[in-house]
């Protein structure tokens, strides 16, 4: 397979979408992919983008990806990216693109021109909103699709829709869970507490966390032994909303909700998932199945999710969770109340979630399938 690389290690280069990698993306699927290629398959793995910080040292979460390199464009212009590809194409065996952005048409064309044998994986991370706007019959876009060896969608509904529409093969490659620090994933329902958990950028408009607070406010008196926990960096606007909503308008609610802030230590974060019986996701949209869903499933949380494109995948078609129409606070409150009052449902959900997670959300398995799709062989 890599006879053309000579003494050189095979390599995979992952390009950042638009303006470079954020630190937090290193410990999500974006960082897990090159790390697994490095750790499991012996690849040289490089994450490329514009440096978003004052110095590269500020990518502190790179410590979770030992052996993965970072490299940087001179600036964020398309010209700089194409020039980078021109200079490095000879040493890139697999090029990974995240999202589908107009600049990729030039990047893909240049890469294939300079290294026709090279492989391209485009992880579209597509959602129905961006999907609908894409003028896919635009010839350069069609050419780009034709040049990609593997095109992935991270949830089943988007895979199906894209497959029906774009003239290319589309693979289901979900954003599964990967344990960067060999965390002990064994868990037991008996250690769980009456906690509804959410994790993410708390207060961002996409995550729509206000909906969860408002729904919990409607039911918390009926489930007095339950608490709501929100983990993640919190926006100023959300803090204002929280203080106004809880302190002034619903003072009894304040002590039932904890805003934990950001937890970057993966062991500590997993411990929080293990404690929670329910994981709630209120996003208005997501690229597919978000990373937090894999984490929650591996830890046996019963999932309650808004109807994002990947909602059916998140709850395994209702076997380990329930969905509600985004924006419908009453429906969310009803889902939460029903689950909180049904111990058998949660326990069964726990078993289903663990089994489903190991089968379908194990990112090492997802990447093993990607490897097979790229090279038509099992690495082992």
């Amino acid at each position: 397979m890599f006879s053309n690389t000579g003494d050189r290690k095979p390599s995979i280069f992952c390009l950042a979408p638009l303006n470079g990698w954020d630190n937090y993306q290193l410990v999500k699927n974006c960082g897990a992919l090159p790390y697994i290629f490095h750790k499991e398959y012996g690849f040289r793995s490089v994450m490329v983008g514009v440096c978003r910080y004052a110095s590269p040292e500020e990518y502190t979460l790179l410590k979770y990806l030992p052996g993965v390199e970072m490299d940087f464009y001179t600036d964020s212009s398309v010209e700089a990216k194409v020039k980078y590809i021109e200079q490095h194409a000879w040493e890139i065996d697999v090029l990974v693109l995240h999202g589908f952005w107009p600049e990729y048409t030039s990047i893909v064309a240049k890469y294939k021109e300079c290294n026709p044998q090279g492989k391209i994986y485009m992880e579209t991370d597509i959602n129905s909103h961006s999907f609908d706007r894409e003028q896919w019959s635009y010839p350069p876009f069609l050419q780009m699709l034709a040049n990609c060896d593997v095109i992935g969608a991270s949830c089943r509904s988007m895979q199906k829709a894209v497959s029906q529409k774009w003239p290319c093969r589309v693979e289901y490659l979900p954003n599964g869970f990967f344990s960067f620090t060999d965390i002990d994933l064994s868990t037991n329902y008996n250690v769980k507490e009456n906690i509804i958990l959410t994790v993410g950028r708390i207060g961002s408009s996409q995550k729509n966390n206000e909906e969860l607070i408002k729904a919990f406010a409607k039911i918390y008196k009926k489930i007095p032994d339950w608490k709501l926990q929100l983990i993640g960096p919190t926006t100023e606007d959300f803090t204002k909303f929280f203080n106004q909503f809880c302190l002034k308008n619903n003072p009894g609610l304040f002590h039932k909700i904890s805003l934990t802030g950001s937890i970057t230590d993966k062991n500590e974060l997993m411990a929080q998932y293990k404690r929670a019986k329910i994981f709630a996701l209120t996003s208005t949209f997501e690229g597919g199945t978000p990373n937090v869903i894999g984490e929650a499933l591996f830890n046996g949380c019963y999932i309650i999710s808004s109807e994002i494109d990947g909602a059916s995948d998140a709850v395994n078609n209702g076997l380990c969770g329930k969905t509600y129409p985004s924006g419908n606070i009453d429906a969310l409150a009803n889902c939460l109340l029903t689950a909180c009052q049904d111990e058998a449902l949660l326990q069964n959900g726990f078993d289903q979630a663990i089994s489903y997670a190991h089968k379908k959300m194990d990112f090492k398995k997802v990447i093993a399938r990607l490897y097979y799709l790229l090279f038509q062989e099992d690495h082992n």
Partner: protein
Amino acid sequence: MEKIIYKNCSYILIHEDNSGQLLLNAFDPLNNHSSVPMHYMTEKNGQLSTQFYWFDMIQTVIKEIPPSENSTVIISLLLRLISCLAKKARPFNFLWIGNEMKQWLSPLNSLLQEFNSANRLYWLSEQTIPSSAPSIIPIQTKITEYPFPAQFYDCVIIDNTSIKTIPIGSLIPKTINSIVPFGKLLIGATQNNSISKLQSLLETAAIFPIDKFSVIDSDITPTIAQKIFATTKTFEVQQAKTILKENILALKPLLDSTSPNDYDNLITAVTKLENDLLLLYPYLISSDIKFLVNRLKETMIEYRLEFDDLDQINNAYTALIDEMQRFGDFN
């Protein structure tokens, strides 16, 4: 006519009969398999706003329809026609049977062109239809004498102006004969027509009665189609379909008898099937078949990597065969 809010972001056209609902479904981005985006974003003074592409196009057509007792029926039929266009990115052949002067032909032509330049709307009328629009082909003849081609149109529309003047009982069998399997027959009927008589002429008809009028919306199932159709597909496409079907059927015994370690050749064969299907896809009525072949390949790779068992492969294979039989694409 009213507007309703679609999800969190869109306004769409909805009509008082269920044609609005059909269009609403077509407006769901996941159901829009045409090459025309449902919406696009614009920016003015740093503010993003959503514009609705189809909505604007449909409005342009509808505003050209003069208000009359027939206009509601015509609009309903048009909305259904547009929801057909959104189902798949392939050229559609429509046949509109009706006698009134159509001021809205030109904007309708633009809309058809936008979806696919190969879309064709054949206009069967006993009156002169002046049209220089490339997507609209006038056929001026006595409707009862028109030699309907077999299995040619994706959708035939008989508007209510025709129903008043045409012996509908003899027309319906001819039109059914001219529709491809899983094509549509739309009839704009007024209350003056005998709906039950019309329904009895169709084996499967769903009727949506409201005060002023009804539209009969009938799927032409393969069973009906096979009774009366002779295939008219081009030889090359038919041959490619036959080979593809044979290859899919030949897979079955191999799937069961091959050990995981020897699956590589089988997976290569299915990948080739997928590639062949990409070329055939525009000629197929089923929208799911490409997805289902991919699903089969996915289960095979998981079996090869020993992540899953044979049951998953068999389930995926059965779903694929069911889809092939259901739409009759490979009959």
